[in-house]
């Protein structure tokens, strides 16, 4: 990119990769935006403003703000030992920053030594030397005290001059405060893809007030009206699909809670008609409307079968990993005495809902190894899909078929 110090790109690469390593989704496009903004002098000559600018250009979601602050703080510290953030920044900007911070006396000193151009040239030279010596590229960061470049920082002609009193210090505080800590890692992460997969499960039906022009009917009645326009309206189409979600919350599901929470969050915003119940390992004669209050509130499975007719689409979410007894023997349940075997109930439920699938968070390649997964797959007549985007996609196609 023109107008940037050659070292800037090298330096920035490091920052970019560090951000990406920290799982902040940054692409080249954002980086170029930031560079363009720097050239347009948006940040003024203030390092805090530079931080704000980098943040507004590189971070696109509040849950990444904390990660960004951490990386910025860490990265900035590395540079601080060297003296400055100069290679990150276009020369022009840096020069002006220097001018702003330097005293008259210092400026004269710089002039005496050949001026800013000379300074930048030497800087570049030193950087190159340094690179060869370490051949790591940006390893020179942090070797402050010993490297010629680091020592250079104390030269009155170096860019560090005037920094001690703290534009930097103040700046560091801003990101070291990490005010966005509690926004990190919310459940919403990545639900967009899931929602897109769930969209396959759409059944449009017309309901509500007549708002939309019905073209076919209008043409028909206009023709019948001897060419005089006769408008016909119909109700808008809405997604009328009805989904019944049965979720396993047994102990073995603990490892999959995150995925399930994501799916659940996506489903609850995608489907207006969504009902859900919980079970442990295998559904028996009762299900729980609330996982936390499962010993208090329970709904008889038969009642659910009566309440929701077969136009509902049924989705099980569970790892189907349990002792085979929990499926095939009465009294085999891990939690209570069941008069009828889990398999019987499962069969009853699957029969009641012709459109049903089982989503399994256990990776497909491990399915063979668990006997109970095989048994449930048999009951589901093969309609078990892995809880991945691809599996979800297949499951939705299956449900709509």
């Amino acid at each position, binding site marked *: 990119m023109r107008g940037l110090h050659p070292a800037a790109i090298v330096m920035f690469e490091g920052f970019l990769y560090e951000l990406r390593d920290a799982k902040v*989704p940054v*692409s080249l*496009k*954002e980086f170029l*935006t930031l560079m*363009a*903004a720097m050239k*347009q*002098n*948006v*940040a003024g000559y203030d390092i*805090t*403003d530079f931080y*704000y*600018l980098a*943040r*507004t*250009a590189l*971070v*696109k*979601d*509040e849950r990444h*703000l904390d990660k960004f602050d951490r990386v910025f703080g860490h990265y900035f510290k590395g540079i601080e030992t060297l003296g400055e953030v100069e290679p990150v920044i276009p020369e022009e900007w840096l020069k002006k920053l220097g001018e702003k911070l330097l005293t008259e006396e210092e400026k004269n000193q710089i002039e005496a030594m050949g001026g800013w151009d000379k300074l930048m040239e030497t800087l570049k030279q030193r950087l190159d030397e340094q690179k060869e010596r370490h051949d790591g590229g940006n390893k020179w960061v942090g070797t402050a005290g010993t490297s010629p470049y680091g020592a250079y920082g104390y030269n009155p002609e170096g860019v560090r001059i005037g920094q001690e009193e703290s534009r930097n210090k103040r700046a560091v505080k801003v990101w070291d405060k990490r*005010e*966005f800590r509690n*926004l990190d890692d919310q459940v*919403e992460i990545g*639900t*967009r893809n899931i*929602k*897109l997969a769930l*969209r396959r499960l759409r059944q449009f039906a017309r309901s509500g007030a007549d708002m939309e*022009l019905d073209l076919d009917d209008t043409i028909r009645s206009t023709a019948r009206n001897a*060419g*005089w*326009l006769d*408008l016909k309206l119909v109700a*808008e189409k809405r997604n009328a699909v009805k989904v019944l979600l049965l979720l396993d919350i047994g102990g073995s599901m603990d490892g999959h809670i995150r995925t399930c929470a994501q799916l659940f969050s996506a489903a609850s*915003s995608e489907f207006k008609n969504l009902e859900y119940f919980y079970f442990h390992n295998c559904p028996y004669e009762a299900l729980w409307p609330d996982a936390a209050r499962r010993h208090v509130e329970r709904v008889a499975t038969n009642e659910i079968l009566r309440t929701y007719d077969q136009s509902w689409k049924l989705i099980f979410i569970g790892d189907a990993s349990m002792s085979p007894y929990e499926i095939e023997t009465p009294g085999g349940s891990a939690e209570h005495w069941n008069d009828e075997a889990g398999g019987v109930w499962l069969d009853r439920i699957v029969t009641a809902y012709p459109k049903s699938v089982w989503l399994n968070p256990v990776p497909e390649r491990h399915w063979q190894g668990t006997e109970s997964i095989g048994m449930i797959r048999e009951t589901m007549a093969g309609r078990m899909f892995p809880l991945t985007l691809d599996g979800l996609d297949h499951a939705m196609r299956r449900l709509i078929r």
Partner: protein
Amino acid sequence: MARFEGTENYVATDDLRVAVNAAIALERPLLVKGEPGTGKTVLAHEIAKALGKNLITWHIKSTTKAQQGLYEYDAVTRLRDGQLGDAKTGDIRNYIIRGKLWEAFTAPEAPVLLIDEIDKADIEFPNDLLLELDRMEFYVYETREMVVAQHRPVVIITSNNEKELPDAFLRRCFFHYIRFPDRETMAHIVDVHFPGLQKELLREALTAFYEVRDVPGLKKKPSTSELLDWIKLLMVEDMSAEDLRQRDPQKLIPPLHGALLKNEQDVHLFERLAFINRRERGK
């Protein structure tokens, strides 16, 4: 180049100022998120005011389509007019209804365009506007003309996080998250709205306000706009700092709480807490 520095009615933090100026300088949209009531929509109004530009607002609803922001062709009216023998029907342009984006693109001076609550629309909505917002131009099929922005408007987009926005869309925007103001900023904000408010009253009101916000389990935490309403109410009712301070410790809930708590479950929560508090004191 015009720069945004906040206005007398709006306290802009440094980071917000930088974000807005970056968006203005690079002519990219600025996506603003934050808790409800932290002044996302107001921001666009204030930017327009500060820069002396017109504001064009496009409110997004769940039924809004991207095309409506560009233009709509009213074929039905044209057909009806045609049957009545109206001469207007000869020119299709009479039946092209311009949308907000078209309006913004063709304004004689670059306006501020506010796309409010973009997350309310369908999940594909932002994608449908990618090219239009990127190049600031679009094609009208009916008249075979290209609408190109004469001056690129300053685009402010707000979102309440109801839906996630697509990456391709985000890459084209600057992003700013309006944090909930800390006490100091909040005092400043209140001061801007109610200059000359008694210092005592302000301090007590803010203490009570942040106490309410800190109560765990609230369904809807009161925000800046609720605080401003409440203070206004306190002033109208002529409440003094004393009244606020001498709140009965058994009654946790502040006076005139209707302005702060908008949800009856939250009011119940406070009553329950007051009850527990009372019982513990009784021991």
